[in-house]
Structure formats: C-alpha cells, structure tokens
C-alpha cells in the first residue's frame, strides 16, 4: 500500500475520535459475526467423501451438497434424460445472447423468431413425447424448475403487461376501466393466495374432463399477477414519452397499432426496461411460492432434502447453498438493470 492511500484510509477510518470509535465498534461486530461463519463454512468444513460419516463435527458438510447436487439442479428428473434440460437451457441462453448482441436492425426479427420457436421447443425437450421419453412435470424440480417457471411466467406476463399498460392509457373508457380493474385487483392480493387460487379454481372453471397440469396452473397464476406489475413498469415508460410523439405519428397517417408498434413502444420499452428487469427479479424470487402447492423448485428441493434420514441436520448447508444461488441470480440481474438505467440516462442527455 502506498503512503498516500494509507493516509487516505487512516483519514477515512480514524479521521476524528468519533469516527475511530465507530470504526472499532463496527470492526468488532463484523469480527464477532464473520469469524464463526468463515470457520464453519471454510476452515472446519468437510469437502470430500460420499456419506454423512465423512463429515467432521463443527464445520459445514459440503459433502451433502455434492451428493445431492443433481437434485438441487434438476429435482427428480431422470438422470439419463438430464441432457434435455441442459440443452433447453443452452438454447435459451444462446437466444438471449443473440437478441442482446444482435445488430439493432436484426434484433426484432431475432426476438420474434425466438419467441415463436423456443417456448414450444423448450416444453417439448422437457416434457418429452414425439420421440423423446415423456417426463411428467411431477419429476421436474430444482434450479431447472425455478428458471422454467420464471421464463414461462414472463412469457405470459410481458405481452399481457404491455397490452394492459396500453389499455390503461387508452382513450376508450371501457378498455381503460377493464385494464385498471385487472391491474389493481392482481396487485392488491398476495401472490401466495393467487397460487392457491390458480391451483384450486382453474380446474373448476374449465369444462369438466379438461385436466390442467399442476405446474401449468402455477405458471398461469404467477403470469397473471406479474402481468399486472409489468403493466405498471411499462406505464412508467409510456408516461415518460412526450404526447407529441403519438400526435406526430397520427398526423403522418399511422393507425393506432402502427403508431404504437413503430413509434411508441420502441421508445417506451427502452425507458421501461430497468423497471421491467426489476419485476423479473421479483418474479424469480416469487417462484419460490410454488412450494405451497408442493411443486419443488430450488428452495423446495432444499427444504425437502432436510427430511432425508441419511442426512439429518443439514439445514444450514441446504439453506446456504440454495440461498447463494438465488442471491447470485438476482444480484447479477439487478446490476444489469442498473447498468441499463445508467445507459438510458446517458443517451437521454
């Protein structure tokens, strides 16, 4: 450390007596909290082995996570079929990368192509049929299911949310009223109740004999709620546009849908993108609620693994591992959203 930066740090941490006291108190608190955690998670932890007997007392038993890694990722998905989930994940990642990094001219086409092909392809890969071995949704689980629910619920939520936001701004009174009622209703009720509601009511209101998959019910329920929140995120972008934009488009003779698609949405969505990303983060966090209808996503698998008699008392290991994965996903997304916001602010100037 150079002399200049050393003096800077001394100024920062011990600039005045009061500052020094606060620094010492905080440092003591951090040490009191962090030292046992680091000892438990790293120093005293057991890393190698296959059974509970390989774990030393007092430290974390990461052997447990290693032994159950497959379950944490895929749930009870048949082991020899897990490549299908991997392939679906890779395809979605590639498509996202293609949309983000494509030249702006091709971006819309790439997005539409991905939206038409991928959802069906993904379901085919995961569920099977048509030449692939069928795998029931009961066997899906883990991180794979968390990502599946997040992606498919947002496939419902984003288009519906955009329509609702447009409806809320509409000149037509009935359209506006319907949109407002829809948005405020779903935003006013707890998501856990919506998941219960979807799993109980959807089979009831469909014609007798039409079965609907348990997982599909949860995805539809989540999609409808998140659509209401997405609508509010999009509304922010729509309201940020000067009214002259639509007026100019109308004056040029564009119809409502042409003006919306070519002039309004491209600009409004760019402004809304950070807010929409934040809603997506909320969606990823809320997928955990499917636990209440016994669908086992990443957190559900961690919770279920506590009941394994071969691995008694692994609560902390299961929570720390699953919690870190959620944190990494959400933190990365929130950083990206902040980056988008900065980018937008710079372009506006």
């Amino acid at each position, binding site marked *: 450390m150079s002399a200049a930066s050393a003096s800077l740090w001394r100024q*920062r*941490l011990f600039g005045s007596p009061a*500052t020094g006291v*606060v*620094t010492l108190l*905080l*440092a003591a608190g*951090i040490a009191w909290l962090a030292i046992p955690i680091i000892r438990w998670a790293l120093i005293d932890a057991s890393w190698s082995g296959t059974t509970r007997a390989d774990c030393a007392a007092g430290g974390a038993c990461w052997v447990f996570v290693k032994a159950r890694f497959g379950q944490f990722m895929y749930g009870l998905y048949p082991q020899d079929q897990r490549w299908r989930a991997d392939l679906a994940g890779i395809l979605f990642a590639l498509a996202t990368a293609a949309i983000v990094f494509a030249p702006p001219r091709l971006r819309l086409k790439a997005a539409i192509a991905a939206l038409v092909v991928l959802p069906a392809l993904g379901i085919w890969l995961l569920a099977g049929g048509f030449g692939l071995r069928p795998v029931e949704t009961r066997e899906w689980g883990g991180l794979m299911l968390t990502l599946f629910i997040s992606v498919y619920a947002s496939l419902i939520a984003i288009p519906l949310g955009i329509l609702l936001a447009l409806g809320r701004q509409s*000149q*037509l*009174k*009935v*359209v506006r009223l*319907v949109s407002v009622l829809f948005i405020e*209703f779903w935003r*006013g*009720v*707890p*998501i*856990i*109740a919506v998941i*219960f*509601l979807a799993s*109980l*009511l959807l*089979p*009831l*209101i*469909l*014609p*007798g004999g039409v079965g609907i998959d348990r997982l599909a019910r949860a995805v539809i329920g989540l999609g409808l709620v998140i659509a209401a929140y997405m609508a509010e995120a999009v509304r922010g972008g729509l309201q940020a546009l000067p009214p002259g934009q639509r007026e100019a488009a109308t004056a040029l003779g564009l119809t409502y849908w042409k003006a919306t698609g070519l002039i309004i949405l491209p600009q409004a969505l760019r402004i809304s993108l950070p807010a929409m990303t934040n809603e997506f*983060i909320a969606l*990823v*966090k*809320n997928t*955990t*609620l499917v*636990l*209440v209808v016994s669908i086992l996503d990443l*957190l559900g698998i961690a*919770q279920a693994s*506590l009941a394994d008699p071969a691995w008694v008392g692994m*609560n*902390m290991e299961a*929570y720390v591992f*699953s*919690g870190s994965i*959620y*944190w990494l996903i*959400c*933190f990365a997304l*929130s950083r990206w959203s902040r980056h988008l916001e900065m980018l937008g602010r710079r372009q506006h100037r």
Partner: protein
Amino acid sequence: MTKALALLNDKRVRDVVYQAALLLGLVALTVFFVRNASENMVKAGIASGFDFLWRNSGIDVPFVLTGYTRSSTVLDLFWAGVANTMLVTVVAMVLATALGFLVGIARLSSHWLLSTVAGAYIEFVRNIPLLFFVLFWYFGVIAALPAPRDSVSMFGVAFLNNRGLTIPLPEAPAVFRWAVAAILLSWIAQALVAAWARRRKERTGQDAPVLAIGVVLVLVLPALAVTWASLATGWDVPVLRGFNYRGGFVVIPEFVALLAALVTYTAGFIAEIVRGGIQAVPRGQTEAAAALGLRPGRILRLVTIPQALRVMIPPLTNQYLNVLKNSSFGAAIAYPDVVSLFMGSALNNTGQAIEIIAMTLAVYLVIGLAVSAFMNWYNARIALVTR
C-alpha cells in the same frame, strides 16, 4: 353500402363497436367459466352459498387473539385469521420502519465503513426471496434454539426457546385499559398544544416551549401510566415445570420466525427509499437554510425531512401494502393467518372454494384500499402548496 362504409370509418362509431365487442367477449368468458364451475360443483356435490359460515369449525388454532375455540363457527375462524394477519403486519411495519430508517441513514453516513456495511446489508436482503428468510428463520434459527430447559432468559421474566417466546401476562388486564385511555388523552392534549402553538407563532411570531411540553405529553405521561398499570396488576410470570414453561403467554415460534423474516427483508427496501428520499432534496436547500442562519438540527427538521417525506411517502405506502400481502408467507410455516387458516384449513374441511377464496382476497383488497386512501389523504395534506 357507401353509407355503411362511412359509418365504419367514423372513429366514434368504431370506438363504440370495439368497446362493445370487448365487453361482450368478457361477459361470454365469465358466463363460460361460471357455467363450468356450477356444473363441476354439482358433479362434486358441493352446494354454493355462504351457509357454511355458521357451521361448527372444529379446527384447532394454536395462536388466538379473539375468543375463538374449536367449537366456534367458521366465520369466527375467519376473524381469528384476520386478527393474526393484522397483528403480524402491524408489528412488522413498525419494526421494519425503524430498522429501515436506521440502515438508510447509515447508508448515507460519511463514515466509510458504516455506509459500506449498510450497503452490504441492503444488497444482501434485497436479492434473496422472502420465503427463503421465512424458512431460514423457522427451520434454521428457531429450530436451533435451545430446548425450554436451557432457554435464553431475558431478565428472568421472558424466555426464548425452540417452542417460541414465553412472556409474562398481566393478571388484571383491566388496569391497562385505564393506561391506554390516559395515553390517548395525553396524545390528544399534545395535538391541541401543537395546534395552539402554531397558531400563536403565525400570529405573533413567538415560540412556545412545544418540545418540552411534547416530551412530557408524548413520552413521560404514557411511560408513567404504563408503569403504574404494571405495578397495579399482578403478573403471571412463566415458570419452568418439567419440560416446558407454565403460565405466561406463549408467542408461537411461527410468529417469531415470520416477524423476523418480514422485518429484516422489508427493512432493506425501506432503507433504499429513505436514502432516495433524503438524496432527492437538492443540496441548495440545506445550503440556503444554513445561509439563513438555521442550526443543523433545525435544518434537518424544518427543511430536509419535510421535503424528503414528500418523496418517500408513495413508495413507503407500497412497502406497507407489501408487508400486508407478504404476511401471507406465514402459510408456508403454518402461521395461522387468514390464508393458512381460511384458504387452507377451512377450505379443506368445507370444500367451498369460490366463497372462501373471494372472502380471503377481499380482506387484502379492502385493507389495501383503506391504506391507499389514508396515504393519499396524508400525501395531499403534506403536498407542496404552490401559488
């Protein structure tokens, strides 16, 4: 023909046609759903209607604030659930606000380490699902607490263990009614004094000792009243008998876990709101106030906070409504809130899905609308008066 075409090209006519089509579509969809539902319910042998509310519930609830017992009606069960939801919501709101303000102000501190620790806390809790915290507190922390024999004792009257928090219970709760009445009276007196002082200040420019009177009326008198009431009644202090505590009131572990999760999680969001609100006050405001000769404390009280509050209130309202909705996460650990009692247990017993779901959702919608209305009124009251 041309007349019909002209009619179709008329914007007003087309608008009416579109809206009528939308309405018709929605009505058709509703009719379709309702017909299916009634057919399916007939098939399953479920009668519709609200008669079930007056039937005997037969459900045991481990944590009751109302007079509910297992021989009460289903409607009483509903109210017991609503009371439990309200209890955890209100306590969590208060504690989360306090913690959130502390963390938010620490985040803005000029002390580097303090601000970094606060920032780390915010980034940590905001990026993890709330359900994770609920399960973690319940199965990770509370379950790991010692058994009743080795409880964590708090001054020898309250005991924390893996069966919850046992607190002493007053033997004559009636005296507390007098204490509450005294507190309310002194708060009303404080409001009157403040209004009188403000009017006098506007008229004559003279200051009244509002702060001293306020401390006495808002803090000292209520503290005296509570102390008097605590001394006047006898206390049922929990005592260890065999394997568990007898006497006192047991706050169930589900409540403790849910409360801890709601408070730590929501505080992260409130902290960001506080930070944003204070940062939104332009620096020129504090500089101008300082140039006018105001002391730092008065700048904070008269210039910064009133303007920061105006920015903070809409997002804070949202957070409070989120706490209300998120209190339903208790259903995952069987905290007896309205969702888990009514939408869970009562629905399983009676099978009246539609009625029960409608009533449960109505609770949240009604409270949500009431809170929004109050906050809008408050917001309008403190809004900037522009000429």
